[in-house]
């Protein structure tokens, strides 16, 4: 019995000690059922999980992790007003030149015409431009913390960067 306990303790020593951080950048699963390629302008919605900001010409483009972009009219910085939302599933980053917004739509690169900011239009799509963001498993080459997938949330279509609070999964 004692030997058995010793063996267990030794086994325990093999496991690397990991301190779960309160807040950390890492990957979170993207859940989706349906057509993830559908890009759409939608009414303003609450900001739930934010990671990145982009600024252009008095507008703040605020990335709602994995879901799309909040458009905030910031022409008066003292009174920013939510103007709308662009649904882009799996989005993690954007850049804008002129009236064209470039974003990743999960693994694809999309170009959107935002000259009418309340009704954006898909111009073109480069399929599978970012293959490493796909799949139901954490990307092979990733080392770090990630949010444990919850099977009750639906199908995992990919992974995106997030600020995670006390993540329970890592590798």
């Amino acid at each position: 019995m004692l030997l058995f306990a010793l063996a267990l303790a030794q086994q325990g020593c093999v496991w690397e000690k990991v301190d779960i951080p309160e807040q950390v950048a890492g990957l979170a699963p993207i859940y989706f059922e349906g057509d993830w390629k559908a890009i759409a302008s939608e009414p303003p919605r609450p900001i739930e999980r934010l990671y990145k900001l982009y600024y252009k010409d008095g507008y703040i483009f605020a990335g709602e992790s994995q879901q799309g972009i909040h458009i905030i009219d910031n022409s008066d910085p003292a009174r920013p007003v939510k103007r709308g939302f662009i649904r882009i599933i799996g989005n993690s980053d954007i850049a804008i030149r002129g009236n064209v917004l470039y974003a990743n739509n999960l693994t694809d690169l999309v170009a959107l015409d935002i000259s009418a900011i309340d009704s954006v239009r898909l111009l073109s799509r480069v399929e599978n431009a970012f293959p490493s963001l796909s799949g139901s498993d954490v990307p092979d080459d990733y080392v770090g913390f990630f949010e444990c997938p919850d099977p009750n949330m639906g199908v995992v279509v990919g992974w995106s960067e997030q600020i995670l609070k006390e993540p329970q999964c890592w590798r």
Partner: protein
Amino acid sequence: MLRFLSFFFILFALASCAKDSSGLSPGQSTGLGGSLARFTIVGNFLYTVDNTTLHSFDISDPAHPAQRHSIDVGQGVETIFPLNGLLFLGTQSGMHIFQLLPDGTPKFLSRYDHIISCDPVVANAQYAYVTLRVSGCRQAVAGAADLLEIIDIANIQQPAIVASYDLESPYGLGLDGQTLFVCLGAAGLKVFNASDPQNLQQVAYLSDINAVDVIPIDGLLLVVGPDSIQQYDYTDLGNIKKVSEIAIGA
């Protein structure tokens, strides 16, 4: 000429940003991302980084980006920052510098290696500023520390460290002239006068916010954290004033 023009626009966007609020300008001007950005536009190219790869897309026909290069950079690429025809990549093992050839091809130029940790990078013509974070950085190896490092890039072929400062859990950072903004996560945001890299002077400390990244826009500071988007007026560095706040969640 065209190339020069678009470059000028980039510089313009970086330097002063458009204050025009009457709508998106239809020209070739680009917007501003934070230091944690993974997408950036230089001239007629969109450059992006994912975990291991630097991608380029030709956007000379803006509506139809065309994939051009995919360059394997190695493990743990986190951020991309453009300056003066160069790309600075923040990776977990160091800062990589690529030169943009006239045809848009990124050509590896040099790298500055540091101990494995998490970090973005921003730069001006003389210095690059890199934060190294171990707090909450799963990849960090033993011996790594929470640091701000200042790297002399005047000789772009041989980046060399000139100073290093202890900072609590540094995340994103931003630069406006000699003013350096460093996000410290739950520990807030520190503002430095960086005119002497050997003697960084703290000019302000906003301790009551959770700051992950910043975008300085000519006197207006956008700060993003997990709880809120905050805006500050920093035209008077001795009296940085909160302008507004957008709550996240709840």
